[in-house]
């Protein structure tokens, strides 16, 4: 990169008087970063930002996707506030987030600490935990649905072998959400483990040596050295996991389809249903905007908190 720029600068020098050439070179240097981010900006604008603006526009319309949009004003938003199913889907999403985020982070941290030691085959074990994340969520969802299948699934077969009864994992409203949460743990733990593993490896060994000299036990080393130094990673994971939980769709779509009843209908599930089953693209967009605002607020709070904690460190 440097060589190329030098060459260009020399070329400029030959053609222009000295100070103008220098100014041109400075301008160029300022321009170069924009050239590098341009493809990303163009793609982001086309496929994320413009659709986002368009979704906001559509949320004020009645649109079946295959016909022409009709102006509705704020009707979709007043309907949303009064729609018990929207609130139920939001509640389901919150319960799902609360049951999967702390647990998947805690298990991820435990695994990371276990695999941070010299163990035989640790690369293999790390890969095994990470694997569900790189496989398509539809495939993991299908496998999870088979495992939880109450008639021929492996989990119920194991329960029967142990002399226990079958459980209607995916067709009992009380069990469906826990089953989804367990399947989510299987997928998400690997990601949390890898991030924590990287963070653990960046903690200098001298802190532990100093702690040992001061006579700190294993537990107090974790409490006073490891955990505080992992704070930036913890904040990052918290934001990413919460956003992921609010956007969960594929796993639910494959495993339960939002049922039984509405017990596993998440916000994105309801958005999809409104958009493609009942052809209410305007209402679906209004819910999309609401979800956008929720995630935005949460991200802002977390971001502030993480910056404060970083400056406190």
């Amino acid at each position, binding site marked *: 990169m440097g060589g190329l720029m030098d060459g260009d600068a020399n070329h400029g020098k030959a053609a222009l008087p000295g100070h103008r050439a220098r100014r041109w070179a400075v301008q160029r240097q300022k321009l170069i970063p924009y050239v590098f981010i341009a493809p990303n900006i163009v793609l982001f604008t086309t496929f994320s930002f413009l659709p986002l603006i368009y979704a906001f526009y559509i949320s004020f319309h009645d649109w*079946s*996707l*295959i*016909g022409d949009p009709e102006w509705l004003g704020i009707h979709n938003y007043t309907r949303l506030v009064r729609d018990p199913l929207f609130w139920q889907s939001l509640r389901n999403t919150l319960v799902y987030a609360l049951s999967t985020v702390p647990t998947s982070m805690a298990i991820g941290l435990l695994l990371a600490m276990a695999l941070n030691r010299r163990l035989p085959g640790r690369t293999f074990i790390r890969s095994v935990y990470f694997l569900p994340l790189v496989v398509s969520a539809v495939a993991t969802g299908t496998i999870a*649905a088979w495992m939880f*299948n*109450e*008639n*021929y699934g492996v989990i119920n077969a194991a329960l029967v072998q142990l002399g226990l009864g079958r459980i*209607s994992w*995916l*067709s*009992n*409203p009380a069990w469906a959400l826990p089953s989804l949460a367990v399947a989510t743990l299987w997928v998400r733990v690997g990601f949390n483990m890898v991030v924590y593993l990287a963070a653990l490896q960046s903690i200098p060994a001298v802190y532990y040596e100093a702690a040992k000299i001061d006579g700190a036990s294993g537990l107090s080393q974790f409490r006073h050295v490891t955990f505080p130094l992992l704070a930036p990673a913890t904040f990052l994971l918290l934001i990413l996991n919460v956003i992921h939980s609010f956007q969960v769709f594929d796993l639910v779509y*494959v*495993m*339960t*389809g*939002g*049922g*039984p*009843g*509405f*017990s596993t209908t998440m916000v994105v599930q309801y958005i999809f*249903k409104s958009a*493609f*089953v*009942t*052809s209410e693209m305007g209402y679906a967009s209004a819910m999309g905007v609401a979800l956008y605002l929720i995630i935005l607020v949460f991200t802002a709070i977390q971001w502030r908190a993480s910056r404060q904690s970083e400056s406190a460190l």
Partner: protein
Amino acid sequence: MIKTPTPTIARRTLLGTAAATMLSTGRLARAQSPVTLNMTVWGAAAEEAAFNAAIAKYKTLHPDVTIRMEVNGNAMQAYQQVDTRLAGRQAPDIFRVQYQQVGRYASARAVVDLTQYVDVKDEADFAPAFWQAASYKGKPYAMPHHTDTFALYYNRDMFEKIGVVPPTSLDKSWTWVEFLDIARKLKAAGAPYGFAMSWQNAAFRWLPFLYQHGGQLLSTDLAQSNITSKQAVETIAWTQSWFREGLVPPSTSVKSSEQPQNLFANGTVGMLMAGDWQIPFLSKNMTKYNWGVTYMPRDVAMASDLGGNCFAVSRDSKRPDIAADFVKFLSNPENMHDFVSAAQFLPVRKSLMGVKLPYALRPDAMEVFVAQSATIPSHLVSTVTLPNFSKMNAALTDQLDLAFTSGQDATATAQAIDQQVRAVLAV
């Protein structure tokens, strides 16, 4: 492609009709320069193979036309894709569509009115019920391609064990009471569950039970909701009792991702209410048991489900004339004959309806489906082909699932459906 070993008179007659149809339309739609048309479908392996055979045949007649077929996993995914592409004005030229969905596309002018491409004489060969189902405000917006319906599959070995002989003619079909008694007997004899119903997320398949009990979703003029009637509430309660009594697996409710045909194939249930298109799957996978097909149970009336699909030409097609010609080609007597025989469906042309078709698999079972298809109520057809029916279907799906899985009582279920159906009718 499946061929009869010795062509019958009927087959020869329809080959003649096909040739005449092709001669009359072939010139009209011949492309001047190479044309490529996109076609979106869904379907099982047997259907895909039958479509490919028809495409290859069209190519030999019109070498300058290429049909590119895109296959989706199921109808729902295909609609999602077609709708999104319609919004982007890039819809496929031709797409497969259920009778229930034609009105939705036609009312939004998303598909082409086929009137100018249809030959009146040829139109007369289609059974009126299907022609009307593919029409909107009296004009054809899709070409009927085939139909299918539901009947009752049973595990022959289990039936021998409990000493039950299934009905051999439509008029002897079991009553609701007899049917549930047999389900209980199967369970008592060791089957984990008596039976399962293959909803596949389409609660409109519940409507035949409602008609069997003398009810209907909408009033006779289709203008009012009729779902809070005594018959409707009783039908909800009856179907709910299957779950309450443990006669069906809890995982076979409307929204479940369970594939009930797996449960029938592996002996978890002794009977399965499902469509004729499950025959290829069961012939291949139900290896431990023998199976047969009998008629749907009935109450005060007989009724079964309106299934099947048509083909429509999208408004985005740049060559609707050629697309319409191909759609007509798919539904011509010879190709309809070949498709339904190979993929186990029922024809929608009068000239094929009385004909013994050379079904590739289990012609004995197909005879039951053919007889059962005569019991599809015409009011049911009018109801499910309304342009807004998909919204009513969503209400049925949600509320019946709550009744079957979450203990919502029958009256509350009927009232919740009623509220949503009224809202749809009010628009």
